[in-house]
C-alpha cells in the first residue's frame, strides 16, 4: 500500500498536476530556454535536482524549522542547491551553462520549488517528498520539452541539433518560432490544448 501511494505522489507531478502546463508555474524559463531541446532538457535536469534536493532537506528539517521563519529558511536551502547546480554546470558542461545563462541562478525564484517546499515537503516525510520532487521536476521537464519540440523543429528544422527536415527547410524555417513571439504562441497553444483534452 505504501508503494502505490508513493507512486501516486510521483505520478501526479507528471500529468494531472503538471506544474507548468496545468498549474502554470515557472513560465519564464519555459519561454526563454525552449529554443532548443538540448537546453530544455538541461534546464529540466537542473530543476529536478534542485527541487528534489530541497524537498529532501526541507522534509528532514521540517520539525526544526519554526513556522514564522520557514520562508527565509526555504530560500537559503533552495539558493544553496541552485548555486551547487550553477557551479557544477560551469565546471562540467560549460556550453550548456553558457546557453542557459541567467536562467540557472533564476531557478531560485522558480515558483515551483518554493511552492512544493511550502505545500508538500514542509508537511510530509522524506520518501514522499522525494517522489513529489522527482515527479514535479519530471512533469516540468516534459512541459519544457513539449514547447521546445515545436520551437526547434519549426524554427530551425532540427531536433537536438540534428537536422530532420532537410537543408531547404533549415534555410527557410519558420523564424518566428525561435524568436520571443513564437515562445508565447507555442506555450499558449499547448496550454489551450491541455485544457481541451481535460475538457475544462
Amino acid at each position, binding site marked *: 500500500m505504501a508503494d502505490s501511494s508513493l507512486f501516486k505522489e510521483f505520478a501526479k507531478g507528471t500529468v494531472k498536476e503538471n506544474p507548468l502546463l496545468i498549474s502554470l508555474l515557472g513560465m519564464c524559463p519555459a519561454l526563454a530556454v525552449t*529554443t532548443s531541446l538540448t537546453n530544455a532538457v538541461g534546464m529540466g535536469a537542473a530543476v529536478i535536482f534542485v527541487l528534489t534536493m530541497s524537498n529532501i532537506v526541507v522534509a528532514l528539517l521540517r520539525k526544526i524549522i519554526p513556522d514564522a521563519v520557514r520562508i527565509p529558511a526555504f530560500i*537559503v536551502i533552495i*539558493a544553496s542547491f541552485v548555486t551547487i547546480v550553477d557551479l557544477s554546470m560551469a565546471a562540467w558542461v560549460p556550453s550548456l551553462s553558457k546557453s542557459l545563462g541567467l536562467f540557472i541562478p533564476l531557478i531560485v525564484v522558480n515558483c515551483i520549488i518554493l511552492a512544493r517546499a511550502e505545500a508538500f515537503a514542509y508537511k510530509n516525510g522524506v520518501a514522499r517528498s522525494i517522489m513529489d520532487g522527482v515527479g514535479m521536476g519530471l512533469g516540468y521537464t516534459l512541459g519544457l520539452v513539449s514547447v521546445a519540440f515545436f520551437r526547434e523543429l519549426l524554427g530551425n528544422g532540427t531536433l537536438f541539433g540534428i537536422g530532420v527536415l532537410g537543408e531547404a527547410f533549415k534555410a527557410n524555417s519558420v523564424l518566428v518560432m525561435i524568436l520571443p513571439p513564437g515562445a508565447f504562441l507555442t506555450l499558449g497553444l499547448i496550454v489551450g490544448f491541455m485544457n481541451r483534452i481535460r475538457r475544462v
Partner: protein
Amino acid sequence: MKEARYVIVLTGISLVCATLLGAVYQVTEEPIRQAKNKAVVEGIQKVLPEGTKADADNKVIVDESNPLSPVIYPAVRDGVVVGAAVKATSTAGYGGNLVVMVGIEGVPGSGLKVFNTSVLDMSKETPGLGTKVAEPAFAGQWNNRLVTEKALAVKKDGGDVVAVSGATITSRAFTDCVNQAINAWTKLGPAIVKGGSNG
C-alpha cells in the same frame, strides 16, 4: 524566547549551507578555470594556419582597464612572430556580448590577412538565427580575406560583408569583433614583433 530559536535555526542552516557551498566551490574552481581556458586554446588553434602557434598564456591585453578589451596572442612560426590570434568582444550582440577569436596572418606594415575566425561565445545570440554567424555560409567570407584601409561593415552599413539574413545585429557585432582585432594588431603589433617571441 521564540525569537532566539528563529535566529539559531536560521543561522544554523545558513552556516551549514555556506560550508557546503564553500566545499563545492573548491571542487569546481579548477574545472571551471580549465573550461574557460579550453575555449581560448581551441579557438587559437582553429584560427591559425598549420605550423603557426600561439600560447594562451602569452597574451597582450590591449586595455588593462577594460575587462572587454581585445586580447592579442602573438602567433609564432619557427621562432618568428608572423601574426596573431586576437580575442575580441563586441557589446553590440543581440542579447549581450559576442566573443570572437580572429586569426590574423602577417605583421602590420606588410599586409594583413584574416586567416580564420572562431566564435568563442555566442550564448547571448538567438539559437538558430544569430548563431548562424558561426556557420560557413557567413564565417567563410572571412577566410583568407585581405585587410584593407577601409573598416569592415555589413552591406546595410555601406560595407561589403554579407550579413546573415534576419540576423543583421549579430552580423554587425561579428564584424565589429573583426575590426577590433585588426585595429588591435595594427596598433600593438609592431611593438610585439620587435620584442620577438617572448614565449
